[in-house]
């Protein structure tokens, strides 16, 4: 199932499928299509989220996270 990264619940893992915002910057930081990530923090009041991608921990604003589509489901 495809959802926005910002909707991924805390602690869940997913695979990045689409990046609809500053893709180059995100790629350079290690967030790329096909990578598996885990949501490790969501700050309240529209605060940023922090995801873990392998060894990398990346913090990003909620709007950026809203433009990243990730796939969750049993098949991963």
């Amino acid at each position, binding site marked *: 199932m495809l959802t926005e990264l910002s909707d991924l619940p805390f602690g869940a893992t997913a695979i990045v499928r689409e990046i609809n915002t500053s893709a180059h910057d995100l790629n350079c*930081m290690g967030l790329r299509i096909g990578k598996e990530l885990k949501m490790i*923090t969501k*700050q*309240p009041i529209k605060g*940023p989220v922090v995801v873990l991608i392998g060894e990398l921990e*990346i*913090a*990003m604003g*909620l*709007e950026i996270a809203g433009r990243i589509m990730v796939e969750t489901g049993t098949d991963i």
Partner: protein
Amino acid sequence: MVFSSDARWEMVDEITRQTVTYGTYKQTLGAVLGDLTVKPLTGIPVAVAALYAFWSVFTSFAGELVTDGFMVKFFDGLWLPWFQAIWPDPGSWHYFLFIGNPAADTCFEAFGMLTSGLFVSVGVVLPAVFVFYLMMTLLEDSGYLPRLAVLMDTVLHRIGLHGYAIVPIILGLGCNVPAVTATRILETKKQRFIMMTLLAIFIPCGAQLGIMMSIIPDLIGVVILCLIIGFGIFGFVLNKIIPGENPEILVDVPPYNWPVKEYVIKKLWNRTKGFLKEAVPFVLLGILLVNLLYLGGVIQGLANLFEPVFVTWFGVPKETVGPLIAAFLRKDLAIAQLSIIPMTAYQMVASVVLVTIYFPCVATFVVMLREGWKELIAAIAVLFVVVFIYGGLIHAVGILLGVA
């Protein structure tokens, strides 16, 4: 040969596939800690506790142990009386410049280069900045800053910045000079401008905080509150009126590290050395300048000239003019100078806030110039408006509360 970024990524993946193998390992203590300090539920209490620890070490070690326990006794008990005894001609201009007031009992009151100058810079500010630098170094080296950035993001994003602006802010609490350069980590011109302006106006450096702690330990909380509120209000306004974008935070959070002892010592030593080399001469020079201007009658003239603004608009004594001139060179010196003007608590708070916000010190001014003269001029323009409005606002609040 030049590739597209997709082709490059393909190559990157292929190279990694052929050269790197990932094993499995147990989560380290650092990683667990990392989670705790960035989650809202535990992260905010941790941040508050860290701040509190910072503050108590700062006040107890630098303030009570070194400054009050040793430096004050030494400077007021031995240094000052000795100079007062051996320096010839208590009424002469050179006595006034180097030793100051022959009847003074404390190094704050004397206001000579060799008495107050050394006392303020070495006796009061040095222990304070030393502790400050140590704490800052631990914050920097542990990897806590990016986590703090995540926690502060929501607030800072409201004023056009984002969480990572915490880096220049924290550096600025040590010294505004590296902080101004550190604004380069912000993405847009707008963000850099807002950050630089707010730094120059509202962020007191370690030296200033150290001297405040020593002379107004009971009022420093109010002063800091005034600065934080001003930071918020004017950040919000600047964000509304300045065109440009405020991108969101996007930052790498590195794993926690135990600070490497040699690095910490080295950094601490370099920063302290920098302080001694750059700050002390400026403090001495500042005293010299103020004393010369005083001898020449310039300060008295300016004080009378600005009396209406100071007394009616800001609600502070006209004598505040002298410290404000010294503040061009060193703000710590200016605050030390305020302490010998007889004032009410409200006037003290208002004048310390004014000294802090009114103009960046020379060194900050120079680095700001290096980041762009147009921005500098704009920042100065904003600064004058802010000082005028905020100074008046504080006065108004003081009147409403019945303290001014």
